[in-house]
């Protein structure tokens, strides 16, 4: 009885009592969601173009962040470090295309997934060997990203504090999505990518080799990863812990579907906000820390009702 009350009534009472807090929580979730969405974006890019489920996206985020910070620690000016980091992602992209994707073309999905898991391992090891395993501070200010925060008065209902970096994150995410949209719909390569997504022979007719396309896609994913890394690093700090967090992109994708950019965004937000709210208002009942799995359970429950995901259409099985 008491239990039921705690589960069904109390949380909502709290929400109404302290709307500012609720908004604060939702905002936190929103920002987290944006970051999930960014990672998911990386997945989607690659999945669209090569049908590869890139498990390594998470580690790419870490790796990008690490190389940026690491370079700066070695005395490289921030702006240069940023450019170099981008360069590193480019090299990484080319290497992946050359040494992993190309030899594995045509293998079943599961094999490709495994390959990206292998990549994850490799990159973790590499990152640690080069930059060391200990967490690092993101060079937020050096990159000219806003710090500090603004408090919004809500009458006598209390106040909501927004970190500027979070706002920046949201904005950048927005820009990036916009940019990708343009890239996909306006540019020739972008259209080629879409063609690839549909079928590979079509892509060839556009006159771009698959290898190029894949390299480009991985690079694009790399950029996204870098951005994600910066944002995320700025909020907490850069460490391999991120790699686990990055796995949250999976449930996001489940919700959003593997091929839909808007899906990734919406999915990200649902998960982000969902798990924050869940953690704050219900987590306590079971000793807290449910953030670590709530996302997956949300996705799971969701799947049971819509196996084809949020935007996928019903699958008719044929023989």
């Amino acid at each position, binding site marked *: 009885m008491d239990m039921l009350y705690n589960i069904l009534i109390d949380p909502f009472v709290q929400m109404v009592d302290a709307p500012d807090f609720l908004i604060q929580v939702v905002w936190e979730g929103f920002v987290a969601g944006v970051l999930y969405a960014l990672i998911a974006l990386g997945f989607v890019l690659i999945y669209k173009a090569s049908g590869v489920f890139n498990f390594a996206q998470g580690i790419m985020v870490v790796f990008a962040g690490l190389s940026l910070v690491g370079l700066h620690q070695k005395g490289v000016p921030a702006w240069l470090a940023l450019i170099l980091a981008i360069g590193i992602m480019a090299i990484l992209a080319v290497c992946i295309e050359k040494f992993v994707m190309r030899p594995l073309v045509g293998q079943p999905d599961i094999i490709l997934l495994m390959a990206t898991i292998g990549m994850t391992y490799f990159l973790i090891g590499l990152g640690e060997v080069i930059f060391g395993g200990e967490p690092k501070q993101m060079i937020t200010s050096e990159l000219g990203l806003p710090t500090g925060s603004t408090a919004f008065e809500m009458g006598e209902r209390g106040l909501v504090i927004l970190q500027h970096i979070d706002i920046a994150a949201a904005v950048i995410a927005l820009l990036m999505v916009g940019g990708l949209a343009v890239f996909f719909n306006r540019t020739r390569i972008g259209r080629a990518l879409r063609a690839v997504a549909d079928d590979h022979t079509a892509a060839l007719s556009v006159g771009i080799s698959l290898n190029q396309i894949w390299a480009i896609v991985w690079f694009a994913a790399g950029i996204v990863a870098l951005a994600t890394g910066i944002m995320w690093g700025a909020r907490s700090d850069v460490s391999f812990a991120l790699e686990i967090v990055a796995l949250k992109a999976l449930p996001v994708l489940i919700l959003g579907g593997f091929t839909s950019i808007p899906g990734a965004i919406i999915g990200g937000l649902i998960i982000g906000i969902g798990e924050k709210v869940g953690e704050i208002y219900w987590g306590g009942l079971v000793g807290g820390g449910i953030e670590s799995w709530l996302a997956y359970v949300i996705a799971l429950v969701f799947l049971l009702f819509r196996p084809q995901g949020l935007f996928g259409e*019903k699958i*008719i*099985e044929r*023989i």
Partner: protein
Amino acid sequence: MNVLVKPTGMQADGETAPGEVLLRIDSVSLSFGGVRAITNISFDIIKGEVRAIIGPNGAGKTSMLNVINGFYHPQEGTITWRGKVRRKMKPYEAASHGIARTFQNVALFKGMTTLDNIMTGRGLKMHSGFLWQCLRVGPALREEIEHRRKVEEIIDFLEIQAIRKTPVGRLPYGLQKRVELARALAMEPELLLLDEPMAGMNLEEKEDMSRFILDVNQQFGTTIALIEHDMGVVMDLSDRVVVLDYGRKIADGPPEEVQANQDVIDAYLGVSH
């Protein structure tokens, strides 16, 4: 754990005698979303006969088969099996009712040998418990051996001794089709559905396959419903033919009669056979 391996045996209810109607399709319609695949089709299959379902591509033949073995569920119409109206059911139930089939594009279990593939057909008839199977003694072993023997009889019948232990992936297409037939036969079905059993075969293979199909029908008295494009084959094999076109039935009767039917001729105009 034993509940997991609860036996699913053949239905014991009323045996159908030769000559009686084994399966009746009554004004069945099926559609996916908006798309109509089958429109108000009725026909029946008589115990012991070879029934051909023909028609141009996209006529809804395969859908019809899928309806018969419970893979698709028609929105309208009824299916009467052994004199009982059949409720909406899961595909695996159809199997336990004694309906087996082969597939248009071979659907063998690529990871297994010919022998194992055919053994899978015996699954419904094997009931030894989980623990017995772990130990592979007593009932489990006896069962394996007894059913291996059955399978060997089928191998002998279809003359595929030479490929007994070959992984099916390595077999040429024609043989794969034969193994698939063997697998279906292993289920000792009452009704055998063959979806284009001779697609992509050369003349010799077709002749063999025809012989096997007739032998099956004769030796085991198995009722057969088959989809086939090769008119010659259909005419030789089948006792009765039902012709579909755009999801509708346009003719039904003995081969020669159907062959003469004007609608059929029209339907097939331009279709090379």
